[in-house]
């Protein structure tokens, strides 16, 4: 073998096997969030793009069959984990309603737990924390934003961002852009206006508010348009992208003529002022509870031969949208599964709702069902194959509404009839599905992560975590986790070892390929010890 200079061997060794050392402290800010180090996952989506794609390649199609559990963390809670963990300075932060944990990312050992006082907020789910510098930001079921010291879990400040007495609640993971902590709100059971707020990370003071719908009680106008999922951000354009939820009343539009702006919309806002730059409405005049809050995924690539800054969304209403994110103009709109509620597309590329499919007293059969063709858990975009991979839910539901149901909140009733889960890979250039992978009866509802080595991680309806080949959808690895994954997986590298993390039920699982410290057979090692 050719001799290599000693220093280069040392350099290679150092690169391959970094020595454990006191880590240089990571300081979370917009620069880090724009380009997170390999040993971090500092925001809900990892970086700002929403691709949920990792550049890490240690786990490959060839070795993923050996993937094993590195550790598991038991929350011992009834509530399922729905949060996407953050990783900063070797510490993971994740949540269920009223609870935040700091956990050692190497061992799964708990560092601290913060428990919010018992409250009457709606405990429907908790999607994780946001982080700036050494501070965490957490939303409570009763509409408080709380900042915790990441080192200790001690409360720094606690402010009210939504009035739970009126019917708001909060679940989302705040997004940090510059010195703004951006928080959204939830609330479907009352006719309340939707909004997004920016808070000062130092004090919790409000910096701006953007309203998706007019003040409560405005006649002939929608309420709703809740902002309950974490948006994405383009640092170069300095634009914040956010999806808004359905209008209220939900199943009847008798009090809200027109398209109902800005409900069921994708909006671009200036993150420093909250000013609206443009809006696109996946579901004008909505009456089926299909929020448009699914991740607005930011992709820079060619579209039909032209370099484009795009925004892609697999929307809950069953349509795949590709927009030019500089101006909100449509590049492509196409259903990615069974839908029957639109008569066509308008000149903006927005579906035109069919009034015959509005909920009625004797019922209307709709596809998809209320859960939608997908829901809030993250899809993933794989830059190498150009595939947009989503957990889809082909489904059917019946929708009812009559005057006696009133015009407040749900204002009707709907029932799922049948559905199944399908992992689906969409070619963004055409909207055509390249491959599907059946995930089981009912549906799966897990998030998706892709890796630069050509792997896609997700979960099926039976509670198996799966690794499939990104190019084909072929299963390469699985492990039964005992509960359906309700989280979106993340990945990071620590001490030269790549981990994939996903919560299932109330347990957080960390997976890695086995550490190879000594490849000799055990007997020879024993002999050596005996010598």
């Amino acid at each position, binding site marked *: 073998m050719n001799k290599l200079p000693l220093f280069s061997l040392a350099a290679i060794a150092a690169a391959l096997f970094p020595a454990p050392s006191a880590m240089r402290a990571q300081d979370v800010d917009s620069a880090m969030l724009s380009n997170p180090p390999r040993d971090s996952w500092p925001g809900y989506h990892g970086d700002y793009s929403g691709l949920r794609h990792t550049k890490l390649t240690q786990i490959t199609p060839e070795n993923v069959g050996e993937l094993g559990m590195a550790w598991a963390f038991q929350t011992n809670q009834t509530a399922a984990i729905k949060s996407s963990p953050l990783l900063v300075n070797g510490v993971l932060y994740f949540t269920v309603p009223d609870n935040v944990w700091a956990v050692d990312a190497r061992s799964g050992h708990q560092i601290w737990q913060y428990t919010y006082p*018992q409250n009457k907020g*709606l405990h429907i789910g908790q999607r994780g924390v946001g982080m700036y510098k050494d501070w965490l930001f957490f939303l409570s079921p009763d509409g408080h934003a709380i900042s915790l010291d990441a080192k200790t879990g001690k409360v720094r400040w606690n402010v009210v961002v939504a009035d739970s007495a009126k019917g708001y609640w909060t679940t989302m993971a705040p997004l940090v852009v510059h010195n703004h902590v951006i928080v959204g709100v939830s609330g479907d059971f009352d006719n309340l206006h939707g909004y997004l707020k920016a808070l000062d990370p130092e004090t919790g003071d409000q910096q701006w508010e953007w309203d998706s719908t007019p003040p409560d009680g405005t006649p002939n106008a929608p309420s709703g348009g809740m902002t309950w999922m974490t948006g994405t951000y383009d640092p170069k354009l300095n634009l914040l992208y956010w999806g808004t939820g*359905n209008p209220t009343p939900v199943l009847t539009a008798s009090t809200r003529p027109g398209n109902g702006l800005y409900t069921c919309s994708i909006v671009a806002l200036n993150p420093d002022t909250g000013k609206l730059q443009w809006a696109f409405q996946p579901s004008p005049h909505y009456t089926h*509870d299909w929020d448009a809050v699914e991740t607005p995924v930011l992709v820079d690539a060619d579209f039909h031969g032209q370099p484009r800054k795009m925004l892609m969304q697999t929307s809950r209403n069953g349509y795949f949208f590709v927009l030019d994110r500089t101006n909100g103009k449509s590049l492509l709109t196409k259903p990615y599964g069974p839908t029957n509620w639109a008569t066509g597309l308008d000149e903006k590329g927005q579906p035109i709702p069919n009034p015959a499919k509005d909920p009625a007293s004797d019922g*209307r059969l709709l596809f998809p069902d*209320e859960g939608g063709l997908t*829901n809030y858990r993250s899809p993933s975009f794989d830059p190498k194959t150009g595939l947009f991979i989503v957990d889809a839910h082909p489904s059917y539901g019946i929708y009812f509404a009559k005057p006696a149901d009133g015009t407040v909140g749900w204002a009707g009733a709907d*029932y*799922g009839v049948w559905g199944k889960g399908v992992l689906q890979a969409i070619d963004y250039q055409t909207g055509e599905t390249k491959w599907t992978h059946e995930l089981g009866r009912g549906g799966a*509802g897990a998030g998706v992560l892709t890796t630069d080595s050509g792997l896609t991680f997700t979960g099926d309806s039976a509670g198996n975590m799966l690794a499939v080949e990104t190019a084909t959808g072929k299963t390469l690895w699985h492990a039964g986790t005992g509960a359906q994954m309700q989280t979106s997986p993340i990945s990071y590298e620590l001490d030269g070892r790549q981990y994939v993390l996903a919560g299932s039920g109330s347990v957080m699982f960390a997976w890695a390929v086995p550490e190879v410290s000594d490849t000799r057979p055990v007997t020879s090692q024993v002999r050596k010890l005996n010598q």
Partner: protein
Amino acid sequence: MSLYFCSHRPVCLFAASLLTATLCLSAQSTSAQRTSTQSSNPTVQTPSARRQVAKAVAGTPSTALAESGNTVFQGNCAFCHGRDAGGGETGPDLTRSKLVGDDKNGEKIGAIVLNGRVEQGMPKFNLSPEQISAVTAYLHKQKADADLHQGGRRGVDVADLQTGNAGAGKQYFNGTGNCVSCHSANGDLAHVAKKYRGLALEERLLYPKNPPMKLSVTLPSGETVSGRLAYQDEFTVALKTDDGRYQSWPAAKVKFAVDDPAQAHADLLAKYSDDDIHNLMAYLQTLK
């Protein structure tokens, strides 16, 4: 936001969507009792009914207990059953529930809470006896409040589902829908309208919940084992034989076939017009 499907379900919504409508506290036989809860919810109250309601309100446990039950309810139950217990995306309206109405001191509600209805998508909740008694007080108060209010209720009444044409439904049943390939008006569906009414009947028409599926497995030896499908995912299939024994196999290593008697219902979903469904409902309601 929505009652966001999976979004907010404590058990996975997707999976539960199949089961959504079956998740009904009020039912032993869910469908049957849902009907009875509907009929027990008169939209016009008689004076005597009002007196009964007033009596029920007077008889409810202390407001303080109900208030503490409200806190427990919001923390554990509201994400499925709605903030006011009036029903959410995945959980039924508990104010219309027969079981809640029949419950005296939490003995029925407590059993459901502690054991869950896992098959129907409701997990167990490990609540203390004090918490159960508080939730019971809260549910009784919500039921009494709801009974006092006209309108604004979310639900489907039998009267809502009478817009179809029975003759056209019969034609669809025998013709386009080809329902006769599995069903007969004089056989399995005789008196179906007595067993199921309203929404329960329509839901069964569209897709019967948890249909018993059959699995037959051919082993490498050539031996065939058949039974009721007990489990299936991408990697494992399992059945229960007639004597109740559970057996499973790696899906890749055996030949197997699943017979899903309800698949024809699923296949029809994309083909129905709304009129077809209403007409079929009208026809089935003649089979008394």
